[in-house]
């Protein structure tokens, strides 16, 4: 199904073969790991009911993201997604920042996947009940598995042995089916297994907890906007992109609600709010070995598929910035034999390993969420500038989203609320992230930009932008 040909690290032949079903599958495949881990930290921030409300509000946020991104990406038909949009619409420094948003969102997600996988193996190792020769319980440490996972997947990407889109879809489909099977196994039509009446405890933090929960509520959908990066390969972008992305969000909304329903009916919110592998824990509580094996496989598959895609996407974004000279050109090299952006792949490995090895899962996920959130904030003014510089009718648009600028304004309000949600409990991380991007921006503007070609950055066959730019 994958119709791209990788030559010199770039897509040079993009066939328009994808329909709305492919776009849907691509989106759900990217995001499904969010059902297996991370979402439940929203329970810790506001309680189980707050997490459900946050899940639905985040769904509205992503609906706005999908509407806006479908229009801009189906028009900026260049590989690179939001990075290419920023170059053409806002300017080079914004593009540099958007490139970094993508790199950090994916690299931190990769680290989070490795942490989850290592923890799961450690948990299952502990459940085997093996003992040493001296009779002491044998403890399987998670750290070697964390490092091995990242190194192995980086090596696969270095060698160019990419898991194909079809393969990734098969293993994420298995992970998706595992959730469905678990859902029916808990017999949701009765209260034999699920005990919501006994386990739901209202809003332990009150309504401020509902706002705080929005922070991790984004994790249910983070990355769904990646569907728009397939714009060049879609047969009918005007129909397929919005349809595929919106049905993807609806699917995730249903899957997220099912996941919440299972977990909130099986375990106390205090446990759920800090669990690393909530769906696997749900299977443990069912006392069923086949279910445990199924959810073990589902968690492993979803984290591996996600981490593999993250290494690929983060290194491609880093490579693209180097090719445009936003970063040292050394990173823009392609392996002479494997034809992969090998230096970018290798450079990002220590970053992922260090965060996965030392940082707690919730804090690594917070960095990924913050990177995504900064990107969504960019989308709000990006679409307004896009409509002003090239009003409707001046260029060919693949899709025109309705009710402009309402989706952008709603998205801006929801982004502002989410910054406040992160500030509640994770304010230091928010400040650390902002310090990083401010210093990196000053470095780029006053130092790095001198190495960048000017006019070459604008590659779309569009007329001169209107207005005061």
């Amino acid at each position, binding site marked *: 199904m994958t119709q791209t040909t990788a030559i010199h690290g770039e897509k040079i032949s993009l066939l328009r073969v994808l329909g709305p079903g492919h776009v849907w599958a691509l989106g759900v495949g990217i995001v499904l790991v969010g059902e297996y881990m991370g979402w439940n930290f929203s329970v810790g921030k506001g309680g189980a009911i707050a997490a459900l409300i946050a899940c639905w509000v985040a769904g509205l946020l992503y609906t706005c993201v999908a509407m806006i991104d479908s229009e801009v990406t189906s028009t900026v038909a260049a590989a690179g997604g939001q990075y290419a949009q920023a170059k053409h619409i806002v300017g080079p420094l914004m593009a540099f920042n958007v490139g970094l948003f993508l790199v950090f969102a994916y690299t931190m997600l990769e680290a989070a996947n490795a942490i989850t996988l290592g923890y799961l193996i450690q948990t299952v190792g502990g459940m085997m009940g093996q003992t040493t020769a001296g009779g002491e319980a044998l403890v399987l440490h998670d750290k070697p598995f964390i490092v091995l996972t990242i190194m192995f997947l980086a090596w696969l990407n270095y060698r160019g042995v990419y898991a194909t889109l079809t393969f990734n879809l098969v293993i994420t489909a298995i992970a998706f089916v595992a959730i469905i099977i678990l859902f029916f196994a808990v017999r949701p039509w009765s209260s034999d297994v699920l005990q919501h009446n006994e386990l739901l405890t209202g809003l332990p933090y009150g309504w401020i907890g509902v706002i705080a929960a929005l922070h991790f509520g984004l994790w249910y959908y983070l990355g769904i906007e990646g569907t728009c990066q397939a714009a060049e390969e879609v047969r009918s972008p005007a129909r397929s992109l919005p349809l595929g992305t919106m049905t993807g969000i609806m699917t995730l909304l249903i899957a997220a609600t099912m996941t919440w329903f299972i977990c909130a009916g099986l375990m106390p919110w205090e446990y759920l709010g800090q669990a690393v592998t909530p769906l696997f824990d749900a299977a443990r509580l069912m006392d069923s070995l086949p279910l445990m094996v199924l959810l073990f496989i589902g968690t492993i598959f979803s984290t591996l598929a996600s981490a593999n895609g993250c290494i690929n996407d983060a290194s491609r974004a880093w490579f693209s910035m180097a090719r445009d000279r936003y970063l040292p050109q050394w990173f823009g090299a392609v392996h002479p034999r494997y034809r992969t952006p090998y230096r970018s792949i290798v450079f990002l490995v220590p970053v992922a390993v260090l965060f996965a090895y030392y940082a707690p899962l919730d804090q690594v996920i917070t960095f990924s969420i913050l990177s995504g959130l900064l990107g969504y904030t960019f989308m709000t003014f990006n679409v307004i500038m896009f409509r002003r510089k090239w009003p409707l009718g001046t260029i060919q648009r693949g899709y025109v989203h309705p009710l402009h600028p309402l989706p952008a304004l709603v998205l801006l309000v929801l982004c502002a609320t989410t910054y406040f949600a992160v500030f509640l409990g994770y304010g230091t991380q928010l400040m650390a992230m902002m310090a990083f991007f401010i210093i990196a921006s000053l470095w780029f503007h006053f130092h790095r930009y001198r*190495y960048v070609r000017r006019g070459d950055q604008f590659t779309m066959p569009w007329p001169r932008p209107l207005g005061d730019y």
Partner: protein
Amino acid sequence: MSNGHYEPPRQSALGQFFDSLFLLALVFASLFAPLYLGLASGGKTEIELADKTTWAGLGQNAVMQGAWEKLGYTPETAAPVIVSRFDYSFDLVALGVTALIVVGYFVLVVAFSKSEYREVIAERFGRRDQ
């Protein structure tokens, strides 16, 4: 510069090395160091409970107790999880400063981008008066 074609200088290998090193150092200093030093784990508090040694004392009913025990917990090991809470009290000044930094960041990026974008458009399309 905005009038003609800009040919960027060629960066030396040493210059590229230092730029790479700078970015790596920036990631570790601004993102990793606060985590490693434990500075980012604030914002938590504990609720006071008279009895942390029994499930009832921890406010857990029979269903909750059953779940904890199946997951391998005792009241002693579950207590730190159950009493832990986020501290959502905040200083309005701190909130204002944070908001100012986030907004200021975007204003800075858009303003600098605008000046850079003018050069891109001038080179791509020619100056407006031409």
